[in-house]
C-alpha cells in the first residue's frame, strides 16, 4: 500500500510539470496584454515598452518559460502578482482555508444528505419517496448556484434577518454559502446513489442474502451500500477537488476571499502569475484528492484492498525467488 502511495505521489511530478508548461503556454499566447491592463488603454507606446521590459515580458518565450519552471520546481515560488507585487504563494495560502472550509463543508453536507436520499429512492423505486427524492435532485441540478444563493440571501438575510448576507465575519457567515454550494452536490449525489444502489440491489448476492434470511435493512447497509458507494465516492472526490480550485460563483455572490475569486481577478487583469499559481495549486490539490479517493476505494471495497495487498505480496514473492 505504501509503495502504491509513493508511486502515485511520484506520478504527480510529471502531471504538475505538464500542467505548468501548458498553462504558461496558453496564457502566453492568449490575446490581452497585461501591460495595457496596468497602464491603461491610452498609455504611450514608450511607457508600455518600458514596463514590459521591467516585468521581463519582452524576453523570448522559452526563456520566460524556463525561468518560471525553475522558480516553481526548484524554489517552490509561484511568483508575484503583476498588479500588487504580493507573493502569489502567500496569497493562495491565505485564501485556501476559506475555500477549503467552503468546499469541505459543502461536500460533507452533500454526502450526508445526498446518499441517504439516493438510498431511499432506490429501495422505494417508483414509489412516492423515490419521486420526492428525485424531484429534489432534479431541482438541485437545474437551479444555478448563484440563483439559489440569492434566494437564500433574500429569505434568511433580508426577510427573516437571521443570517448575514455576505462577508466572512464568523461561522454564521458561511451557513448560506455552504447550503447554496451544497445544493447541487446533494442532487448529483442522490442521483448517483440511486443509480448505483439500483444496480447493486438487483445483484445475485443481494438476492442470496435475502434468501438466507438477512433482514432488508441488514442487506442494504451491510451488503449493498458498500458496493454502491464506489461510484459515489468518485463523484464526491471529483467535485471536492474541483471545489478546492475555488467555488467561483459562490465566492463572488457571498464576497468570500477564496481562491476562485482570486483566480477570476487574475484572469480579468491578465495577471499571469496569479492564474498560473492557482492552476498549479489546483493540479496539486486535485491529484492529492484523487489519490485519497483511490485509497478510499480500498477502505469500502475489500476486493480493491485485496488487489493492492496481492500486488505487494506478488512482488515480495518474486523478490524472494530472486534472492534464492
Amino acid at each position, binding site marked *: 500500500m505504501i509503495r502504491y502511495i509513493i508511486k502515485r505521489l511520484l506520478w504527480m511530478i510529471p502531471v504538475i510539470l505538464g500542467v505548468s508548461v501548458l498553462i504558461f503556454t496558453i496564457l502566453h499566447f492568449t490575446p490581452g496584454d497585461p501591460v495595457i491592463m496596468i497602464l491603461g488603454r*491610452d498609455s504611450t507606446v514608450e511607457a508600455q515598452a518600458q514596463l514590459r521590459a521591467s516585468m521581463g515580458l519582452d524576453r523570448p518565450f522559452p526563456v520566460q518559460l524556463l525561468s518560471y519552471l525553475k522558480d516553481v520546481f526548484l524554489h517552490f515560488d509561484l511568483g508575484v502578482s503583476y498588479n500588487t507585487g504580493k507573493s502569489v504563494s502567500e496569497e493562495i495560502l491565505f485564501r485556501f482555508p476559506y475555500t477549503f472550509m467552503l468546499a469541505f463543508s459543502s461536500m460533507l453536507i452533500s454526502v450526508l444528505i445526498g446518499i441517504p436520499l439516493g438510498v431511499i429512492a432506490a429501495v422505494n423505486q417508483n414509489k412516492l419517496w423515490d419521486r420526492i427524492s428525485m424531484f429534489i435532485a432534479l431541482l438541485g441540478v437545474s437551479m444555478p448556484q448563484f440563483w439559489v444563493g440569492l434566494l437564500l440571501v433574500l429569505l434568511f438575510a433580508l426577510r427573516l434577518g437571521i443570517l448575514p448576507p455576505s*462577508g466572512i465575519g464568523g461561522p454564521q457567515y458561511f451557513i448560506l454559502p455552504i447550503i447554496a454550494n451544497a445544493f447541487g452536490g446533494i442532487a448529483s449525489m442522490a442521483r448517483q446513489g440511486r443509480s448505483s444502489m439500483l444496480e447493486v440491489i438487483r445483484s445475485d448476492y443481494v438476492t442470496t442474502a435475502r434468501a438466507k434470511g438477512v433482514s432488508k435493512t441488514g442487506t442494504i447497509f451491510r451488503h449493498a451500500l458498500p458496493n454502491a458507494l464506489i461510484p459515489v465516492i468518485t463523484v464526491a472526490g471529483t467535485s471536492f477537488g474541483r471545489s478546492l480550485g475555488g467555488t467561483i460563483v459562490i465566492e463572488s455572490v457571498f464576497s468570500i476571499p477564496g481562491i476562485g*475569486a482570486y483566480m477570476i481577478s487574475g484572469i480579468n487583469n491578465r495577471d499571469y502569475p496569479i492564474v498560473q499559481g492557482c492552476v498549479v495549486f489546483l493540479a496539486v490539490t486535485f491529484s492529492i484528492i484523487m489519490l485519497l479517493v483511490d485509497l478510499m476505494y480500498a477502505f469500502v471495497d475489500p476486493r480493491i484492498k485485496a488487489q493492492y495487498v496481492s500486488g505487494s505480496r506478488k512482488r515480495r514473492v518474486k523478490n524472494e525467488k530472486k534472492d534464492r
Partner: protein
Amino acid sequence: MKKKLTAVTLAMAVSVMLLAGCGGAGRTDAGGTEAERTTAAGTGTPAAETSQPGVQDAKGEAEIDEGRTVGTIDEITINVSSDIADLAPFSVTTNGRQSVLPTLYEYLAYYDPNTESGIRGILMKDFEALDGFTFRIEIYDSIYDSAGNHITAEDVAWCFNTYHELGISGLAWLVDYCKPIDDYTVELKLMSDAAGQFENVICGQVPIVSKTAYENSPDGMTEKVVSTSPYIVDRYVSGSQLVVKKNPDYWQKDDSLILDVSRANAETITFNIITESSQTAINLETGAIDIAQKISSTEASRFIDGEDADQGYHVFGTGDSNIYLLFFNMSEDSVFHDNQALRQAICYAIDTDGIVQGAAKGSAKALKAVGNPICVDYNPEWEQQDYYDYDVDKAQERMKESGYDVSKPLRIMCASTEMSQSISQIIQAYLMQIGIQTEIEVYDSALFSTYIADPTAWDMFVDTRMNNDYVTTLSSILARKGDTPAVNFCEDATLEQLAAEASGATGHSAETVEAYMQYTKEQAYVYGLMSITNYYVTNDKVADIFVNFKGLVVPGACRYYTQQ
C-alpha cells in the same frame, strides 16, 4: 389519480418554497424613523443635475433635519465594488484601491472644481507656476505621519520620482523630475503643459509618504500603512475587508486648514468588498453597510419614494466622471477615412436620448459635445446647439452623399460591460433604419484594450473615457501627438493644432476651446453619447455624503447624525 394528485402536491410545495425567497424586500428601518428629508447634499463633487424626484444632488450645502445634530459617529461601513488588492502607496490603480486610497493617504492637494484655481492644498501650503511645465511647491512644516516621521521636501521629491520610475500608472510619464529646493519646497517639472495635468498629478496620483517609513516597511506598505492620513489601518483581510480607525495624532492641528476631504467624522470606517452588485443593496437593507456607493439605477430606484425599501434611506445622485463615446476608425483603410458624410450620417441616425432611456433607464444625460458637462471649461451654450440631433432624413441624405456601399456590415466593438453592450445594441438598431448592417463584437476588458490598438479589428467602438476636469483633456487621445497616434488613428493637422492650442496651459481660453470643440463636432471623428448618473444610497445615520472628483465617497468626510 393518486399519481396525479401526488404530482400536483409536489409542484405546489416547490412553488411555495421558491416564492418564499422571491418575495419583495422587507422593510428594514436601518437607522431611525425619519423618512421625509428635504435635501441632504454632499460637498466637493463636480456639479451635475439630477432632476429625478426623490434623488438629491450630491452638491452644495447640506440642509440638516430639524431637531437632529450633525457631527461625528462611532462606526460607519461602506461597500467597495472590487478587490482592493493591496494598500501600498505606489501600486497599480484599480477601482478597489481608488475607493480606499483617499482614506489611507494624503496627496499634496485636492481637486475642487468649485474653486477658482481648482486646487486646494492638503499637504501643500502654496504653489507657484514658473512656466507651463515647472512648478514650485511649498508644503507645511508641521507634517508628521502616524509613526512620527517628519515629512519634508525630500520625501515629497522621493515620492514623485518613485512614482515616475515605477512607471505603473498611465500618467507616470507626466513627471519629468521633482527635486527639493529647501526643507519644505520642491520643484516639480512635468512633461506636458496641457491644462489639467498639474492638477491631475498632484491631486490624486501620488500619495505622499515618508521615505524612511516606506523603506523600513517589510512589505512595502501593502498591508501595514504608515501615512499622514487622519486614519490608520486597524485590520485588513485581503479580498474581504479593511477597517481603519481615527488617528488621534493627526498632524494638522489648525482646524481652519483641514479640508473636508481630510476630515475624520467617523471613529471607525469599515470598507466591505462586495463584488456582486445585487448584494450591495441587500447589505444596505440588512444594515450590514451604511453607505452603498455607485449602485445601479435599478437598485437605487428601490430606495426612492414609493418602492419597497424607501423608509429611512436617502438617495444621492451625481454625474459620473466618465462619458460614453462612439469612436470611428480613421485609419487609412477604414470606410470612415475621408468620409465625413458617412460619419455624420451615423451620428444623425443615433438618438442619444433613446440611448439614455434604453441603456441607462433614464439615469444619464445625452451629450451635446465630446466632453463631460461637469468639466470647468464646458460651455453651457453647447446645450442649446444642434449636436447631430436625431434626424433620420438628414442621416439618409448624408448616406447618399457618402456613397457608402451598405452590402458590407460594419463592426461595432465594445467591452463586455452591461452598459456598453446595451449601447451597442441600440446603435445597431438605429443604424438599421438607414440601411447600415452592423455586427457587435464583445470582448472582455483585456482583449478589448488589446484590439483597440489594432485598426483592422473594428470599424467603430463604444467606450468610456474619464473627463472630469477640462473638456480639452480628451484631446490627448483624440489627436495625434508626436509619435503617439490618436486612439482612433485619426491624423488631422488642423485638429492637432487646435488641440495643442486649446489644451496648453497658456493657450487654454474660451476662444481656443470653442474653436477646438466646434471643429471636433464638425468632423465627427468621435461622437459623444452620454454621461451617466452615479447613485449613492445611505441609511439614516448619514446626513450628507462627500463624493470626490473621481466619483467615490470619502466616508471620513461625510457628515453623520449624532442623535437618532
